[in-house]
């Protein structure tokens, strides 16, 4: 149990708040369209051009099985560093950061685990809300392209 406060980025997908350690987040940009790449998995939205780099964009709504929404100005691309790979995560909104104590994370309750199909590593309380720690490994796991 450590009392170290770690800065996390908070973002919304659907109605749920998710967090990632700020150290893994390289940048956050507004979303202005994506180039679809035929033959990739359904949750891979395609390619985006961010600050001089072309990176893959993963649609988290699609990943979590939520239906698509109309484009909104709140949408963001959260660019993460995953074992040296730069990958963008498309989220519905990303406005806050929060300091969360390392020891404050708990195992996700079963109901969460079911719905998010194992994309959540742990949960924590930030004020009155429950936030989910995203499991990037699972989110970005390679499956054979399904169209």
């Amino acid at each position, binding site marked *: 149990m450590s009392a170290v406060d770690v800065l996390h980025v908070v973002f919304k997908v659907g109605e749920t708040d998710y967090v990632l350690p700020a150290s893994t987040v390289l940048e956050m940009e507004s979303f202005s369209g994506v180039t679809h790449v035929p033959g990739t998995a359904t949750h891979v939205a395609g390619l985006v051009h961010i600050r001089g780099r072309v990176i*893959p964009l993963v649609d988290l709504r699609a990943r979590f099985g939520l239906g698509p929404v109309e484009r909104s100005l709140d949408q963001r691309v959260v660019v993460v560093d995953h074992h040296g790979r730069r990958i963008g995560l498309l989220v519905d909104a990303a406005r806050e950061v929060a300091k969360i104590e390392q020891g404050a994370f708990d195992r996700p309750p079963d109901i969460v685990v079911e719905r998010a199909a194992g994309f959540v590593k742990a949960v924590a309380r930030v004020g009155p809300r429950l936030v989910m720690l995203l499991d990037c490994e699972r989110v970005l796991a390679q499956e054979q392209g399904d169209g």
Partner: protein
Amino acid sequence: MTQSVDVQEFLQGFLGEADEHLGRITGNLAAIEREPSHAHGRELGELLRSLHTLKGLAGMMGIDGIVDLAHAMETLVRAAERSHGRLPPRALDPLVEGAGAITQRIRALADGLAVPPAPEPLLAALERAADAPSEGPEPRRALQLDLDPSIADKLTASEREEIGRALEHGDAVVLVEFVPTPAKAEAGTTITTVRAGIAPHGRIVRVLPRSRPRTEDAPGGLDFALVVVTRLSVAELAAAARVDPSDVRRIGATEPVDTPALVESVGPADEGAFDRASRKGVVRMDVAKLDAALEHLSAIALGRARLREEVQRLAADGLDLRRLRAMLDDEARPLRRMRETLLGLRMVPLREVLEPLPLIVRGLRNTTGKHVRLSVDVGTAELDKTVAERVFPALVHIVRNAVDHGIESPDVRASRGKPPEGHVRVEASSSSAATLDITIVDDGGGVDAAAVARRAGKPVPSDDAGLLDILTTPGFSSRDETTTTSGRGIGLDIVRQTMDALGGALELENRPGQGTTMRLRAPLTVAIVDAFAFEAGRERYLAPIGVVDAIVEVEPSAVVRPPRGPGEGQPIELLHVRGDVIPLVSLRRALGLAPTGDEPKAMIVRRAGHRFAFTIERMLGRHEVLVRPLGDPLVRVPGVAGSADLGDGRPTLVLDLAGLTGRLVERTSAEVQP
């Protein structure tokens, strides 16, 4: 991300400097390795300077792992420099290892990973090599001692050397002349007591008995000359030896003029090391910045194309725009030159890229027990930096394979009538204006095709191409346990993928019993490609013009649908073009997307003798674009070579029509025979 701001700021500067110094260190070690029997004063001097500066820089950054390694290497080189000005062969191995260990740590630092401390066994090995008594030929130095020739001539080389070292350490060299007399003996002073008296205060290098004419002062006809190395003053030593101070004399020594002086920096590298202005005109840069510059240039070119079109329109209205046209033409040349210059900036000399190879092979000598010499003969060949970065690990793997599996052990080689030392040769030549052939030739035993086939559970291949196919099957390994050398890093399957992704090729030439040749064909520039832009299903795409034979209108009357029986699968359409019949398929369908039905044009693509017509909506133009390969596995799909920017900031997919054609040919070749 967790580093303080100050360190981050200096990190880039440090990485640039460290890279340069590492380059010099590797280069000098390689030079010494090539000709071990020569003197290497210059190389050792440069090694010292680079190691010393690197140590200081790493110290400022607080990177102990690198500081310790650099320090141990520096001590070893300094010791070698002092004793002979030559590096003893056994000192080269730990130095090469040390350079490798430092390189790994620099890489870790650049990747934002933790830098591990210096490995103890390596530090110990470096220390041992530095302390070991120097072996090798006569020392270059010939100290001139201010001594009577009768004494000086009797000193052996190692004694002179000892004196030389002592002088460097700041000790004094002293001559004690002792004449035994009955009077002294009665007083209790004999040669024995003199020696005993001196012993605790210095080192007696030599005791020379000399005969002399008998005189009253020297009735024995004998005296002793003792050459002593000590820190005591003449007076102190005389007192210790209980001899007359006048019998003790300090010996001066002069070094011959041609001994190179060691340039010592004062303390750790000062901030001047970060002074960019005084460095040679070399700039380290991020390739991404070069790519960005090239893309900006593309955007300018696009703008100009639009300008020309506008000028065309206005001219059609009757305006005299000759001067405007001339201005546009004048601009074209400098833009073209700028493009060439920027592309040229991405090129690196292959020789530099391959510099560490001989050292890697040397390292393998210890782990595999095989004696292998690596020669690199690539002339002035250059290639694109990103190509070089991807080809280098492939080359390393192939060289490792050659040493590990190809070259036989010395006994086997002897039994085959081969010289005990295996030879691996890396050569480069241009096979065309746009490609570079890099060949790795070894004189080992070749590949046992039958054994390979057995291991893979496949039939024995009929030719080298078939053999290569088996060898590049993912997961294939030709030993029961991956050996410690080739097991690491990439496999031959990844080598092939790398070459494919680059648009290059991999070939094998197997000579059973004689050796193998691997040929990597790499494009000189992956970057810029002349491409057609077109639309299919409201999406914009690009395709290299090289594979496109023609672009035609699809007349419905020219399309034939041969009848198909039940169970024969998808109906194939054929297009009549100038007497030929070519399979016709919607590009969208070939990509796995639904066709729109509005596809009046077709691009005819040729690949290895097969032709295919892809229907599209309309052509948009022709552009020279910078292709960025799709690196991430999430988006790597067959048929898409990469992405490019057409000036609107959105990535446009660059299609691999040749690859698409290949897949379609497999599916339909049975049905469509001309």
